[in-house]
């Protein structure tokens, strides 16, 4: 019996290792510059609007290129990361993948999992993109993915509440804090920050510190730019917001909202919490639960002397081509169509944010599709001296470190210095380990 068991064990071990290794044995198919007849798989996540628009765009593609058939694989956001990461580890991923920004760091840490799009310039026209925006998709000098749209978090306020209290949207950090003092007399909070998956609490705190110190929190290649003192400054700032009633404490917030997002919270819907820090590309959800026209874009906060740097941008999503694809030219041609074709741009509209490609942007402008809060906020950001969010900053593990520190400070479990030191150690250790 023992023999049988040990035999089985040995067999399984072998199976595990061959399974894990198999992927790397595959050779990369070089580009030949021609478009052959083939079928390509394309996967994305999204909501109904995005699905509808994308399916329509694919129909258009099929009428132009009937020889290259696109098979669409799509679903909701829940579980999508799990799905794609299993596909990537099994080597069964689709040819063209819509990816999230931080997947570059987790799924392609050395830049080899995705096709180097620089090799496909014959089919993929990148002339419509800023150099800086293109660099978002680079890993180790290889262009792993192309940015579909760029977004940043902006401040949006419930203007009804502000009008009722006779208050103006804050321009500077100091104004924000004094608003807290005024609003709290009415039991209202001018802003909301969270430590859930959004993690806006830490986001605003680093914008503040970046603006004051001029240092970036984490560099694009994953080096920690803040000192422990900078982190402490960020935590102190957060605590100050709580103390002045600008935001609810974590305990109050959790008691009132449970685990729900702010746009599902009665406190926000009824106007007891009157502001939110959100990606331009996601603000529609907040707009929809307030009376029409109530949610308005606020100015990006500055210091007293008008320094406005430190606000951040990132690609809201990117397109990548699998390193295992057998049809790189065809995949590149399809991405090119999605990004640059003006007819396609009209169909897709802003379902993937405000397009980063100049050609698509122009098409939307001509068709009058560039309106609304998302566009307002993103174009205001365009005029600021922004910092690009490092893909490392967005890693789920890093978010856990930030949120733990903020939670500890909010629940008064330790002072900001201890929390800052702890966070400094865990963040730098983790970043080292990823290298």
């Amino acid at each position, binding site marked *: 019996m023992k023999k049988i068991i040990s035999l089985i064990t040995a067999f399984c071990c072998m199976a*595990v290792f061959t399974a*894990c*290794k198999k992927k790397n044995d595959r050779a990369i198919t070089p580009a030949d510059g021609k478009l052959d007849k083939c079928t390509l798989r394309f996967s994305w996540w999204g909501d109904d609007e995005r699905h509808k628009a994308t399916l329509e765009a694919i129909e258009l593609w099929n009428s132009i290129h009937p020889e290259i058939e696109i098979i669409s694989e799509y679903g909701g956001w829940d579980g999508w990361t799990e799905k794609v990461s299993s596909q990537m580890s099994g080597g069964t991923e689709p040819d063209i993948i819509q990816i999230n920004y931080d997947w570059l760091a987790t799924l392609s840490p*050395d830049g080899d999992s995705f096709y180097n799009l620089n090799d496909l310039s014959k089919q993929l026209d990148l002339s419509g993109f800023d150099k800086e925006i293109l660099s978002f998709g680079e890993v180790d000098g290889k262009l792993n993915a192309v940015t579909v749209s760029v977004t940043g978090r902006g401040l949006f306020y419930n203007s009804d509440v502000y009008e009722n209290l006779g208050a103006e949207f804050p321009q500077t950090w100091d104004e924000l804090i004094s608003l807290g003092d005024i609003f709290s007399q009415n039991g209202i909070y001018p802003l909301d920050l969270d430590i*859930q998956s959004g993690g806006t609490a830490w986001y605003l705190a680093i914008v503040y510190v970046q603006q004051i110190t001029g240092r970036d929190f984490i560099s694009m290649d994953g080096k920690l730019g803040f000192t422990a003192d900078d982190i402490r400054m960020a935590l102190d700032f957060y605590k100050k917001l709580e103390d002045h009633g600008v935001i609810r404490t974590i*305990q109050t917030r959790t008691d009132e909202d449970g*685990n729900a997002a702010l746009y599902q919270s009665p406190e926000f819907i009824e106007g007891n919490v009157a502001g939110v820090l959100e990606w331009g590309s996601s603000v529609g959800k907040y707009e929809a639960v307030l009376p029409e026209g109530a949610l308005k874009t606020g100015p990006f906060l500055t210091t007293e002397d008008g320094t406005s740097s430190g606000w951040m941008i990132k690609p809201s999503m990117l397109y990548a081509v699998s390193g295992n694809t057998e049809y790189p030219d065809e995949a590149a041609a399809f991405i090119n169509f999605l990004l640059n074709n003006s007819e396609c741009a009209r169909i897709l509209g802003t379902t993937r944010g405000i397009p980063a490609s100049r050609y698509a942007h122009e098409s939307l402008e001509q068709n009058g599709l560039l309106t609304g809060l998302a566009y307002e906020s993103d174009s205001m950001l365009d005029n600021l001296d922004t910092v690009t969010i490092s893909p490392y900053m967005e890693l789920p593990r890093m978010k856990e470190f930030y949120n733990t520190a903020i939670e500890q400070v909010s629940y008064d479990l330790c002072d900001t210095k201890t929390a800052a030191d702890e966070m400094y150690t865990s963040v730098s250790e983790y970043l080292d380990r990823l290298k």
Partner: protein
Amino acid sequence: MKHRQYKNPVGVGKYTGLLLISPFIAGFILFTLYPFVCSFVLGMTDYRSAGEPKFIGLENYKTMLSSENFRKALGVTLKYAAILVPLKLIVSLLTALLLNLEIKGIGFFRTAFYIPSILGANLAVVIMWQYLFTADGLVNQFLELFGASPVSWYGNPDASIYIIILLRLWEFGSTMIIFLAALRDIPRELYDAAKVDGCGCIRSFFSITLPQIKKVIFINLILQTISALQEFNAPYMITGGGPLRSTYTVGMLIYDEMFKYSEAGYANAVSWVLFAVIALAVGLMYLVTGRRERDRS
């Protein structure tokens, strides 16, 4: 051992039983042993979703020992199971007794009582729980009615675990069904005889019902313990593991490490520790009940 006698009906060889359980043996090798061994091997590597796995021996287990998050999660999980399992058994047995009565419309009631289990941690349940337990939710309004001070349910790390326990307690359906099936197996004559002897409801419950279904109580105990120790979905949906990790179970930790942080190596190592903890709990239960049986005979 060599000349063991197999107690089988006449004409049945010792291999008939093996033949009957052969699907299980094949299934075990393919769907249990193979992934187990994979996971054991992976638990000793630093496997992530990209790159070559490297063998690192017991490193993951060492990390776990020194990890405060792991210790806390284990504590939360044990506390959760220790409170939930006995309560759930009692509640589901009581409702099963109630649903075993022969009254009109019993089918409707049976279905109604099972519905929470169908809902699982559905969105509706998440929103319902918010209406119940948030700061000015129904429960707090109710408490205030009686002059009690409102409780901070979601935000207080000492209270948050109880709203999850309540959710799972409310979903007692599957346990109840197994009890119900067992109750139906008790021969009616036993109760009739008891009635003739002048036994009341409560006495016949203790002297007939309980002994008759004690094996099923044991199965439910085991099954509920296993599923409570592996809990992950309810805290994931209701509290997200917070506040201050007070509802962060080992099941959630494994899921997060595996899929959110893509640390498959570590996640598999933690799974083995959880496996050991569950095995220990179940083993103890077998030991205790086994000894009792022997004492009695």
